[in-house]
């Protein structure tokens, strides 16, 4: 059992006499080697116990609470129940621990009105998602500030009947009234429930993460943007993005957005036609929030990139999770002047020399690059690094990306690159198995 630090400061509250006596007794204990009387742990000031308890993990705290009535009282003080993470895992299919059902009962009974920062970590089974909803629907006396629903494996919330999930979530929306941060990625949340969220929390909502929520429509999210003027961070899928949304986020009443994450995902090749956003909408967006981080994750098949990178877009962090063509990367260089981070999972068998050089030339803020299954000639790569120089704080290139040529071999390249970066650099290595 971990021991917390014991504070020696005598608190001004409570009887000074007892405190003095405590100190004296402790001094006596320290001086004598043979301890006659042990310190009276049961009479320690509750403020002190509280401070100690705050350092203890939950399980240790729970054990400590069984020691005596005073400690048990402290265990149940509101301060210790502001933050809680419910871990819901089925032992039959998961290796991780789960929050004890008895503890959950106790929390709901005695502490639901203390809870403010709550998250649910749920494994891939439907039962765990159901358990989470069950708890949510009992949080009637709660006024949550943050709520996070996190699927650690498969999106198990999506296995639930939609109405079941919605009604549980609505309990929180209606009762909380001062929600500031909400993470509901991979859930069956829908437009009406977002309306409820907005009706009760529009003044306080600052962060909303809802990637992969297929039941929400562009109108639903537009409602959020229209009403929640304090929204600073938003994550959603591309199908929810619209000109209206960008304009709503850029209205005068709206604060500056700090972080916008967009996932562009296609299920099957050719099935999704992606709509286009007008350049003017992006322009208005960036004018209103000039410092915003615009993060875009692309999980598309090569032939689906047609609507993208046709004009200047203020993206700062760009991740290509699947294969992306040389052609598209060429367009990226020409249309992403604010680019800070670029990660390419895979490309093809033709070298990306010109494309990288163009990116080095045009993306003056680029500081992080990751290349997976691509090919770049060593000379072009050295040129690229030379142009970017020391601003590349992150350069993760898989070893097999670099093709030796007339000028440079693989052994020489790490010296050259290190020279231009101003630090020792090696490509990322996969072990020879």
């Amino acid at each position, binding site marked *: 059992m971990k021991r917390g630090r014991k504070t020696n400061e005598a608190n001004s509250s409570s009887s000074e006499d007892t405190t003095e006596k405590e100190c004296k007794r402790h001094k006596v204990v320290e001086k004598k080697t043979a301890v006659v009387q042990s310190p009276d742990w049961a009479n320690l000031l509750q403020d002190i116990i509280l401070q100690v308890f705050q350092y203890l993990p939950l399980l240790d705290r729970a054990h400590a609470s069984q020691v005596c009535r005073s400690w048990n009282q402290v265990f149940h003080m509101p301060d210790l129940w502001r933050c809680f993470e419910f871990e819901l*895992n089925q032992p*039959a*299919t*998961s*290796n*991780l621990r789960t929050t004890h059902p008895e503890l959950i009962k106790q929390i709901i009974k005695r502490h639901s009105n203390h809870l403010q920062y709550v998250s649910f*970590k749920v*494994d*891939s089974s439907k039962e765990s998602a159901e358990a989470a909803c069950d708890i949510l629907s009992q949080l009637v006396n709660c006024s949550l500030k943050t709520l996070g629903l*996190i699927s*650690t*494996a*498969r*999106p198990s919330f999506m296995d639930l009947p939609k109405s079941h999930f919605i009604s549980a979530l609505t309990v929180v929306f209606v009762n909380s009234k001062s929600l500031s941060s909400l993470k509901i990625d991979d859930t069956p949340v829908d437009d009406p429930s977002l309306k409820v969220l907005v009706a009760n929390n529009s003044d306080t909502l600052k962060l909303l993460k809802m*990637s992969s929520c297929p039941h929400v429509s562009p109108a639903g999210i537009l409602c959020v943007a229209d009403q929640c003027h304090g929204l600073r961070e938003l994550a959603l899928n591309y199908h929810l993005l619209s000109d209206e949304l960008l304009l709503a986020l850029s209205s005068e009443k709206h604060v500056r957005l700090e972080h916008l994450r967009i996932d562009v*995902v296609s*299920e*099957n090749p050719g099935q999704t036609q992606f709509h286009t956003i007008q350049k003017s909408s992006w322009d208005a967006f960036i004018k209103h929030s000039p410092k915003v981080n615009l993060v875009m994750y692309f*999980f598309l098949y090569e032939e689906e990139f047609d609507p993208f990178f046709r004009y200047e877009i203020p993206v700062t962090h760009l991740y290509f*999770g*699947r*294969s992306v063509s040389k052609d598209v990367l060429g367009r990226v260089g020409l249309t992403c002047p604010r680019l800070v981070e670029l*990660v390419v*999972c*895979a490309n093809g*068998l033709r070298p990306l020399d010109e494309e990288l050089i163009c990116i080095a030339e045009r993306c003056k803020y680029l500081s992080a690059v*990751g290349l*997976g*299954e691509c090919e770049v000639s060593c000379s072009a790569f050295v040129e690229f690094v030379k142009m970017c120089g020391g601003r590349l704080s*992150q350069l*993760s290139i*898989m*070893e*097999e990306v670099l093709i*030796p040529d007339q000028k440079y*071999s*693989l*052994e020489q390249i790490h010296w050259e690159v290190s020279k231009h970066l101003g630090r*020792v650099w*090696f490509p*990322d*290595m*996969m*072990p*020879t*198995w």
Partner: protein
Amino acid sequence: MLHRTIHLFRKELRLHDNPVLLAALQSSEALYPVYILDRAFLTSSMHIGALRWHFLLQSLEDLHKNLCQLGSCLLVIQGEYETVLRDHIQRWNITQVTLDAEMEPFYKEMEANIQRLGAELGFEVLSLVSHSLYDTQRILDINGGSPPLTYKRFLHILSLLGDPEVPVRNLTAEDFQRCSAPDADLAESYRVPLPEDLKISPENLSPWRGGETEGLQRLEQHLTDQGWVASFTKPRTIPNSLLPSTTGLSPYFSMGCLSVRTFFYRLSNIYAQAKHHSLPPVSLQGQLLWREFFYTVASATPNFTQMAGNPICLQICWYKDAERLHKWKMAQTGFPWIDAIMTQLRQEGWIHHLARHAVACFLTRGDLWISWEEGMKVFEELLLDADYSINAGNWMWLSASAFFHQYTRIFCPVRFGKRTDPQGNYIRKYLPILKNFPSKYIYEPWTASEEEQKQAGCIIDDADDPMEIKVKRDHSEENISKGKVARTTE
């Protein structure tokens, strides 16, 4: 005083560069070269499939032959090791037991037990390290007692250590003449068993034959390609490299038929002569150094071969899915690239390292999200070069459980194969049912029209595949973000 010694072969099944055997010979008047085949001990410590048994028995047979040429022989004694030792210490009046020092927990425990036995029965125990280039303890010491967890750091530490231990001299017949060898009838009663004797299926399609002799021949073949060796880079995307290599050496290192130190110094000599000196990691020595890296980490990490209680391993919420695991193991995923690899693995006991990356990624964070421990067990059973440290270490690496890169990389089971072998010849060889498929479709046969499938003589049953396809599409994206979740919450 000269000893009467039992030399226990465990993982150094060779005569060249065998420091502890040499020490045994130099300190003894009688030497009994023994391999204790403690089946219960072996099977409780690791999974061993039929091909691995074959390789082991072939290696023992070869060891016996080579010992005979020097005037001795190998005695293979079956039974529980402590009982065997007690019995024979007495029978042969043994005063010393020599054995190779190994870092796996089960071997360390065995050595500790033998030490105890030595104290009880009055014999000395001598062990020396020879399975790795360096004494890994020295690496740990320089790094402040803990193992370097990045390859770069590891190389840096090695640069401070200097060159590895030099191989010891070869044994000669004279060495054995001074020591009396076991009697002929002993050799007869303790001969190397055949697979059938151990009730192991004699069927063996693998082109790999065990033993020091074979290993040394391959080594020479490997090194005669000198020009190539000097400019060797880790295999890029050469189709031929997927096929069983005639100069591949990994199973011989793993079984100890070949000494890594010998190989290292032979390579160093070649480099010294060649014009363009390759630095690791891209040089051929890189293979040895990676091995050393994993040995070092494993030697200092408790519970290295599992997730629970393993301080360097990320605790990830893997799925338990026996059905999908079984399909992966039995080459029935429906992805030809993956299935061809798993077929070669089962039939031959060796697959190229890029192939290992592909199937390991597929099982874990790429597609099935099943624990790396399951994959590790399958590899342990089927791979001839399965090795405690290297197997677990690589599985953790490929499943992004440890040794992190900045960005998670996922190998697509279709695209990666296409890059490696665009014509699909590898698939045709190991999945003959697909051999008539045009290269365009062979990695994704479900994309061919029904007519084309008929022409190729193989209809893809939609009932089998869509689940797997959907698994792939759903999971890769999820897995990338899951990966992020797992990391940010630990």
